């Protein structure tokens, strides 16, 4: 016997609202990007507060209360371009994040389901996590200087999503109708967001590294390149983000395997998506090992992490559109 579903169960008001929110979100992120670029180009290079022991009252000498502190290695130079408009940019980014979240919630409510079931929704969610990871890095590691470098890929992704990936709000195929979508996809989206911030930081690192090499040779460096934060600082932020993302990615892949076991009857079947998430995992694992291997630190490790990010992007876009597999929901 076949039962006809009464309707596609999509709330038109909420669905329209969520479509409008995408556009507003893009506008707000674009404004934030402009402010961040302005800060990067015209700000003054200042020491970052709170990254050093100085903030708690002592470094290399007399602190408060008669404590003398001695550090064997000096902490890395923590200077970045600062401008009042950058602070406004942070506030605007938070507004964008709220709109982003509202978009996802309204879309989920409109179709009455977990709001990641197709490429369009994945991209929006990844942007949310990327921006959230950036704000986390900005608060925790004072990495506000990454703003411009994170918002560029976010805006590119949103553009691609709206132009090419857009699909109407609606129900998902039965295979995706499981609580595992909340676990598996959420973990991978979160990890992707953090990997994205790390990728931005790594590219910035490579530029800063070159700038420092040129400065060391006595060359004149101008424009934004001259005002980049120190390479070591960027390298650390990139590493921190991967340290956060890697276990999330591992967990997400394993959750996917458990779900696959429940839905398809095997936990690992070398589906193209599985293969490429495995490759991504291996490359990032190589990155973590490279950082602990003499002769592989710094630039080489940075390139390994960029290869990992390339695999991640390939897995996200190419595998869905070029290969046929069980993960085809384009």
């Amino acid at each position, binding site marked *: 016997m076949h039962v006809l579903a009464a309707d596609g169960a999509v709330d038109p008001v909420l669905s329209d609202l969520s479509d409008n929110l995408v556009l507003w979100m893009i506008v707000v992120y674009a404004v934030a990007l402009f402010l961040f670029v302005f800060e990067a180009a015209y700000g003054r290079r200042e020491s970052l507060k709170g990254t050093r022991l100085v903030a708690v009252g002592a470094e290399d000498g007399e602190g408060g209360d008669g404590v*003398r502190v001695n550090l064997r290695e000096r902490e890395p130079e923590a200077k970045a371009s600062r401008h009042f408009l950058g602070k406004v940019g942070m506030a605007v980014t938070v507004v964008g994040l709220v709109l982003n979240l509202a978009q996802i919630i309204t879309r989920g409510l409109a179709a009455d389901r977990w709001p990641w079931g197709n490429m369009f929704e994945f991209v929006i969610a990844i942007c949310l996590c990327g921006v959230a990871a950036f704000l986390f890095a900005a608060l925790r590691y004072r990495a506000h200087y990454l703003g411009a470098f994170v918002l560029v890929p976010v805006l590119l992704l949103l553009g691609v999503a709206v132009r090419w990936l857009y699909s109407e709000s609606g129900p998902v195929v039965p295979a995706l109708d499981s609580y595992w979508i909340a676990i598996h996809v959420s973990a991978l989206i979160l990890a992707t967001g953090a990997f994205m911030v790390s990728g931005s930081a790594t590219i910035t690192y490579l530029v800063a590294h070159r700038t420092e090499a040129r400065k060391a040779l006595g060359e004149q460096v101008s424009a934004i390149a001259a005002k980049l934060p120190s390479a070591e600082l960027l390298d650390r932020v990139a590493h921190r983000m991967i340290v956060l993302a890697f276990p999330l990615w591992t967990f997400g892949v394993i959750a996917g395997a458990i779900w696959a076991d429940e839905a398809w009857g095997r936990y690992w079947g070398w589906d193209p998506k599985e293969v490429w998430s495995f490759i991504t995992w291996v490359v990032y694992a190589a990155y973590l090992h490279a950082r602990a291997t003499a002769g592989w630190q710094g630039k080489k490790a940075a390139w390994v992490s960029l290869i990992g990010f390339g695999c991640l992007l390939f897995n996200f876009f190419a595998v869905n559109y070029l290969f046929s597999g069980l993960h085809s929901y384009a």
Partner: protein
Amino acid sequence: MTEPPRTEPSAPALSPLGWARWAWRVLTSMRTALVLLFLLALGAIPGSLLPQRVVSVEQVQNYYLENPDLAPLLDQLFLFDVYASPWYSAIYLLLFISLAGCVLPRAAAHYRLMRARPPRTPRRLDRMPYSATLEVDAAPEQVLAEARELLKGHRIADHGDSLSAETGYLRETGNVVFHLSLLGLLVSLACGSFFGYRGNMLLVEGDAFANTLTSYDAFHPGTAVDPAAIQPFWMRLDDFEASFVEEGGMTGQAESYRADVTYRESPEEPERTHVLAVNHPLRVDGAQVYLLGHGYAPTFRVTDADGQVVFDQAVPFLDRGDGNFTSDGVVKVPDIAPEQLGFTGVFLPSAATDDSGDLVSDFPDARNPMVVLKGFVGDLGLDSGNPQSVYQLHTQRMEEVGDSPPLAVGDSWELPDGATIEFTGYRDYISLQVTSDPARPYALASAVAAVLGLLCTLFVQPRRTWIRARRGEDGRTVVEVGGLVKTEGTAPLRRFHELTTQLNRRLRRSDRQADMEKE
């Protein structure tokens, strides 16, 4: 008189043992592990670009048909079985040997470290990554007592005028657990393919099957599986329901499938019921039954020229995959004289005419089911001894007798020789997969242990702290704090500084109290 020199003095030859040591050292170095990791990633790529037998044998066959020259060449390089190929196995086996060779000695060293006392206080603490000194009035014993309290959760050793404390052993424990879990995962995978099996079948509404080899359309046993001794469960499909989106841009997309089944764990067990759905398999006696797909099995009744019913059953038709369940199938009627009958047919669940006037199905559900048949008379070839697919009609020794008009439920089509075929309705069928993998729980346990180990090794920060308190020349107590970390970043340094500040604050408070008592 003189013997020629046997070896050159500048390059002493390595003994076989020496070579073995050298090879082992190279294999277990991090650099080699890195290279092997890259090879592991690189080697996995062709498996995603080329069809794999482990994923779909049909796709490999199609590739052979499309690239008859290239395919055998690729096959010789095992490129259709990448993940089971000798070269890929070589990569991961080398990697795991390298891993074991690296991790096991580390595990032993870590075990010794965990049993040992934290190391003695070095003479000069100011050479540590973090060091601080302060002076207080409190006695050295009191300083060390306060420090002990602040270092709760550390393992502490006393050395008279100083103490050493260590914490964060979980980092290295996690590291060892993570790498050994990966090894466990690999072994579980191997065991699964050795002791497990996988089989596929179709089951029509109302029919039942017993879990024996003959019930399967395809059966893939592991090397150590006896196909005659698989779990003896039994299952019947009572009812199947599918629902589809009826309106809007996603019309025709499936919303849900559910199959009501009755099963018995073994012939002696009572009957039980289960709702089989996507993401909701039936677990029975160590095997899992999965709902993979569904389709239509139109039912036909064939009467011969004398009015005798010679065929009355449901015939599963295979979905073409056009989204609207246009399905192809074959009806074979062997028990009819003088000549056997065969039909190829198309089933349209929602028959409608498209713009060009052709009959198509415009919805996946059975709103207006119709079949169109092509009839053949002659010899079906069933007695030739060669096995035949139920989805193929061998027409070499048959003669075509024409096409039927579109038949709705209840319609009949009379053939030239007087026999009649009636389209009596349809039943749903489901395609099932049965898998048994006794190593699944171990794979899951390994995976969980790997994640936990990973979290420990990435987030636990091992720290060694030393605190020394000595009476200075002026009678005041000089307190030295030293901290050692192996991880990068400023966070652990800040933890040391927190300790110093807290210790300082506590001692100052007690100094003040002592002063007040004196007054």
